[in-house]
């Protein structure tokens, strides 16, 4: 198991487009991927789940990866957050 904390950088928060990008990236890996925020947990591979997070710019999320490729999955997902989902 591998855990990491990220902060949402992009202005509009984790709205539909970045949510989709996140789910697509996570789906490339075998590991399970969960996101914790404000006391509840959602499956990071589910678009409808990620959409319910209502995560705005500046929000902190705890990510948990569990599986054979957990390190690679974490790296790919964290990069996405770092780049602010390629939004200005």
């Amino acid at each position: 198991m591998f855990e990491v904390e990220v902060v949402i950088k992009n202005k509009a928060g984790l709205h539909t487009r970045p949510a989709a990008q996140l789910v697509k990236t996570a789906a490339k890996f075998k590991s399970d991927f969960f996101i914790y925020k404000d006391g509840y947990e959602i499956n990071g591979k589910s678009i409808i789940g990620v959409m319910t997070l209502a995560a705005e710019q500046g929000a902190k999320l705890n990510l948990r990866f569990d599986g054979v490729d957990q390190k690679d999955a974490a790296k790919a997902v964290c990069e996405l957050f770092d780049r602010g989902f390629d939004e200005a």
Partner: protein
Amino acid sequence: MTEDKIKSEIIMRGIPAAPGIAIGNIYLYTRDVPSAIERTLNPADIDSEIERLKKAIAKSEKELTKILSFAQAKIGESKSKIFEAQIMILRDQFLIDSLVKRIRSELRNAEFIVNNEISKYEKMMLMAQDDYMHERAHDVDDLKNRIIRNMQSTKLISKFESAAILVSHNLTPADTMIFSRNAVLGYATDKGGITSHAAILSRALKIPAVLGLGDISRRISPGDSLILDGYSGNVIINPSSEQLLKYQIKKERYTQFESNLAQFKSLPAKTLDGRKVELATNIEFEEELEYMLLQGGDGIGLYRTESLLFASDQIPSEEKQYKKYKLFADRVFPNLVIIRTFDIGGDKIAPQTIEEANPFLGWRGIRIFLDRPEILLEQLRAILRASSRKNIAVMFPMVTTVEEVIKAKEYIEIAKAELRSKKIKFDRDIQVGVMIEVPSAAVTADTIAKEVDFLSIGTNDLTQYLLAVDRGNDIISDLYQEFHPSVIHTIRHIIKAGHKEKKWVGMCGELAGNPLATVLLVGLGLDEFSVVPSVLPEIKKIIRSVSYSQAQRLASEVLRLRTTEEVRSYLRHYIEKRFSDILLENNNE
């Protein structure tokens, strides 16, 4: 219809969500929410039940893909994103797996499981204090019903034969798109507001819409005719022949206006002899910006920030407010946005419910803030942070004494000092103004003017307080007279007081947008008009066709008149003689 019953005219008022006028017969669209009654499954039927679910999902995806490509072609990529999101959810493997798993383990029918499972997500989205998330919840609800409907293979009828105005309880984004393929003339619904997807899409589709009418879908019957005014929000069921004629003229006039708007919108609001007045608009929601720019507004004379409170009962965070104010300022740059601090209390949202015998004379506007400075300071910081391009002004509502103005200015200084210590940029010379809408403030306008950069006359409340007439009270509504000589004299007094202190004076009440009053107000020396975007072209047209000296002469004539009726008929006569194409509104509007 064989029998020729005389149907009585009913006038209703809703939220003007997309501009335009529609006249025609109604088409009542009833969309039943499909039932998802719980059934226990025979273990032998599990596989076929799952098959039924998967087929329904596939069918829903096919339908939405069709709507998506139609929407992309008609209104462009970015506004079609709503449908892309719905399609992505249909492909959510995690969601599908949990639906299948639940059908297997709980032995319950697919409709029930779909309804139960997706409703959980909806509830979570509705818990968020965010407009955007609430809209998403509505989209998810629509999606859920689509899957269930496709399992039951009940067909939605979304076609009608001849051109008609669609009336329904509510409209989903998909409904709005699909009906636009038929000859839909306009949309009228019980539910929905200016920020709903139905409103956004109908503006993009250029289909007039009035939403939030309450119970129109129950008040109409087949064969009824309808007038829908997407500018004012009025809807008239079974209009009389006079109404019909009036709106046909109005419709034609708007069509003409729109067609020569392109050349018109870049022209300044300037009198024949060169006096330039600012022609700005009153705005409440982000979605109105586009229309306001199209109408050729100089800037925003009144941004009603209360719209930020509609989404939830809470005051939004400083960050959220800042983002909204910045967006408005950027869109109208280099023109000015006058941000009015939350005008709550009276008939509007209050931070907490307090029973007051006379709420209009009670705890409202600036009075609330001076008692709750933490709310005021947060809003002032957000406004200041958004002001770094120097095109924002701040305005306080419901001022009654100069002490309130001095106190409010102290809070601005506190907010500035806080930002300075954090090295956050803002406009050090931000303009500060107040609304003059209470008689005590009007009478002492000279004292107040010394303290501020501008005054803005709020005629709606000013008239109510001057005449001691509750404008929401139907029994005495005929006593509410915006052309009462006392109102005109008070306006003159305020403008003079402001000018004596070399401060500019604007008006953001309804009188500013009444074509009857335009020449009079120019003549009284008003520097800025802030009006609803829809009337902007005709107000500009009137301003551009008189000279300032002519207007001054008219004003001095009007100041001699003794009654409301004399003032009205004088102005009506003047306008009718010069602008035959301007249709003056009836008193009942």
